[in-house]
């Protein structure tokens, strides 16, 4: 795992080596083992490397035999051994045993189409000197990031936005439409980011930059289809078990030891159990426990560890830990968040790094692709309720939702019916499943200042999303539509980035997600919906396929999504220095994004201990993180990562 950065001029103007060094230096948390730079006519490529495969020879950037094609690569190609064998049989000569070199030769063989053959997670750049063409590519699900911008006739790119901001000609300004999207969907809609003129290469896309022109196009689509012929459940169950098992097997390919995140939930316990099947050694596993009982899952983690005999390490995360780490977390997420949930994962990756581990497997992705989330269940119940809105028995099903939200559980049926009500007209809404969440989140926009509100007048985040939907979307059943929205947007835009790549690689930890193997994703998206959620049983097929590997307590436990303590963390009475500074009314007014009066009322509510609801929590975290983004990336951005230190070796400029 690594970081990439680079500059491509459309003319032969030389690229500044000190600037490239500074850009890659900003990303060295992702790849602290070594760095390398290549410059040529009009091109500069940089790489900070976390050595995982072919530790001694996999230096980057890497070129082909005649130096006409160069690559800087962040990620892993899990099927590289199979591809390498095939390429060798076609006469390609390899100088390393890396997956990086496989991409290079595959590109020589197939050009841009080569990305379709890769099974992995990547963000990469290929410079084709012969055609004077730069290619950027990103994996199908969006595990690894690529950002870019254009300054004059140059394209500037990197794994994180902070590398782009190191370039003196790249402007740093908040994109209000991006902010509006985060305060609706929890993420921006790519290519938009939270910063003006800074773009994210969408997952499954390739960017081609040649002669000053940028072209972006998809090489893969997430599509749902109900199978023409429905097979017996047993067939699907066997196929899923085989695919997930193979996805784990491939993700154990590494020249350094591989650990596991073990949260005590179904998905990560399945992955851990499968790793055990392939490895004779005692597996190291890692987890977060919380001092807050509402969030803590240590009892289930303990069950899993006992059952699977892993060597387990646990960090305990308290309110103060979240308070202290939060500004650093926002430095890494590079976007506002409305939950603190990335923070404990940031602390966890520190622990994994300190334990000497660089690679972990996780259970991420199963909830999206196999129907685990409560939002799917909620939509199903609301549809059922809409058919007979006054049925008391149907309304009682609403208590099956969000069992971990005590406020909701205490809510009387008459109100629950109103909160989750759906009319016949709603049933035709293509966003039926997600409207309640988006509407709730969008209420946070009442905190925007009048200026921001008037600038945003006429902009509609939901219409923008509507405009991106593929035609087929409208022919899918409601369950598939909901899955598409989760998998296409929230997964890469928040789960895999703010809660994934960014906080893991903040401490040089590479996470691998077997459930997001594209073969598993394609298989899952072609399954009948009823086998994913049978009645109200979530991830039914997964439990049938691999549940036998788990202790019964974990297989049967109620689903609890990963959450962490939110607003309360910032009002524990200690060390509120940065929060009181950054949320001070004069600061809020000067920054101009939020209404300082409303923010002060919200803070009063927290100080008085009266803020108990999810909306107050989301508002506080959203406002605080936006203010931190403004502070760290716009007002007080610190250029210049120091690149070389005594731990970094093989530093090279070619």
């Amino acid at each position, binding site marked *: 795992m690594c970081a990439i950065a680079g500059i491509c001029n459309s003319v032969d103007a030389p690229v500044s080596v000190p600037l490239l060094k500074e850009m890659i230096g900003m990303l060295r948390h992702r790849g602290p083992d070594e760095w390398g730079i290549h410059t040529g006519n009009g091109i500069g490529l940089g790489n900070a490397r976390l050595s995982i495969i072919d530790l001694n020879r996999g230096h980057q950037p890497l070129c082909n035999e005649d130096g006409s094609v160069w690559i800087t690569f962040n990620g892993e190609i899990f099927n590289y051994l199979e591809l390498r064998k095939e390429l060798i049989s076609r006469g390609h000569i390899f100088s390393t045993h890396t997956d990086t070199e496989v991409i290079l030769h595959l590109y020589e063989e197939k050009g841009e189409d080569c990305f379709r053959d890769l099974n992995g997670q990547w963000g990469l750049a290929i410079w084709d000197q012969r055609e004077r063409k730069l290619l950027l590519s990103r994996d199908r699900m969006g595990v690894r990031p690529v950002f870019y911008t254009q300054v004059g006739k140059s394209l500037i790119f990197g794994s994180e936005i902070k590398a782009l901001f190191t370039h003196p000609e790249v402007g740093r300004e908040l994109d209000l439409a991006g902010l509006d999207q985060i305060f609706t969907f929890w993420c921006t809609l790519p290519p938009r980011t939270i910063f003006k003129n800074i773009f994210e290469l969408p997952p499954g896309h390739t960017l081609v930059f040649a002669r000053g022109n940028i072209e972006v196009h998809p090489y893969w689509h997430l599509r749902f289809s109900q199978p023409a012929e429905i097979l017996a459940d047993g067939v699907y169950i066997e196929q899923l078990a085989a695919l997930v098992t193979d996805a784990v097997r491939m993700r154990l390919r590494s020249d350094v030891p591989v650990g596991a995140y073990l949260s005590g939930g179904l998905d990560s316990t399945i992955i851990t159990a499968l790793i055990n099947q392939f490895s004779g050694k005692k597996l190291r596993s890692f987890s977060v426990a919380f001092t807050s009982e509402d969030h803590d899952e240590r009892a289930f983690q303990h069950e899993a560890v006992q059952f699977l005999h892993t060597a387990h390490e646990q960090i305990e995360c308290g309110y103060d830990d979240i308070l202290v780490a939060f500004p650093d977390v926002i430095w890494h997420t590079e976007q506002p968040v409305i939950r603190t949930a990335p923070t404990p994962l940031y602390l966890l990756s520190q622990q994994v790094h300190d334990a000497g581990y660089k690679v972990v497997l996780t259970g991420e992705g199963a909830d999206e692709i196999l129907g685990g989330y409560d939002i799917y269940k909620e939509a199903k119940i609301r549809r059922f309720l809409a058919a007979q809105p006054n049925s008391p028995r149907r309304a009682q099903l609403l208590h099956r939702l969000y069992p971990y*939200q005590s*406020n*909701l559980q*205490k*809510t*009387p049926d*008459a*109100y*629950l019916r*109103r*909160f989750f009500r759906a009319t016949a007209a709603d049933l035709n809404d293509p966003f039926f499943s997600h409207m309640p969440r988006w*509407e*709730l989140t969008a*209420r946070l926009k*009442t*905190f925007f200042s009048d200026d921001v509100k008037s600038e945003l007048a006429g902009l509609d985040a939901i219409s923008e999303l509507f405009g991106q939907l593929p035609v087929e979307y409208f022919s899918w059943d409601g369950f598939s539509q909901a899955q598409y929205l989760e998998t296409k947007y929230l997964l890469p835009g928040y789960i895999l980035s703010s809660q994934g790549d960014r906080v893991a690689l903040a401490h040089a930890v590479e996470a691998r997600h077997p459930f997001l193997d594209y073969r598993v994703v394609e298989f899952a998206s072609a399954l009948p919906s009823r086998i994913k959620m049978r009645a109200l049983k979530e991830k039914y097929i997964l439990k049938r396929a691999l549940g036998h590997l788990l202790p019964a307590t974990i297989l049967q436990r109620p689903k609890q999504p990963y959450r962490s303590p939110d607003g309360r963390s910032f009002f524990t009475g200690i060390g509120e220095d940065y929060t009181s500074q950054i949320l001070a009314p004069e600061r809020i007014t000067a920054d101009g994004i939020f*209404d300082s*009066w*409303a*923010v*002060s*009322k*919200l803070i009063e*509510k927290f100080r008085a201990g*009266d803020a*108990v*609801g*999810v*909306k*107050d929590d989301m508002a506080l975290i959203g406002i605080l993180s936006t203010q931190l983004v403004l502070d760290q990336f716009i007002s007080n951005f610190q250029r210049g990562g120091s690149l070389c230190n005594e731990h970094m070796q093989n530093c090279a400029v070619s």
Partner: protein
Amino acid sequence: MQRTHAELRRFITNNFLYGRDCGFRDDESFLEMGIIDSTGLLELINFLEKRYRIRVEDADLIPENLDSIDQLCRFVERKVENHCPTMASSILETQAI
């Protein structure tokens, strides 16, 4: 009555609209306005019970009682009177100060 109205309005404005009275009508539905969710309902009940020393029973928890300033006001008065008719006006007066 007037005072209870004003007080309930202040509570709703401060607690759910963060101090910005958007000029909503006294008969406007909180649910339609989107200002009360499941948490908000519990906050509201806590406030009513503490402030007016009433007990809100499960059977009271229907939107018809609690979904606008007008409805809230009527509900509080009815409850206070049922609870302690002789003290009713003084509770409402004292609490409003």
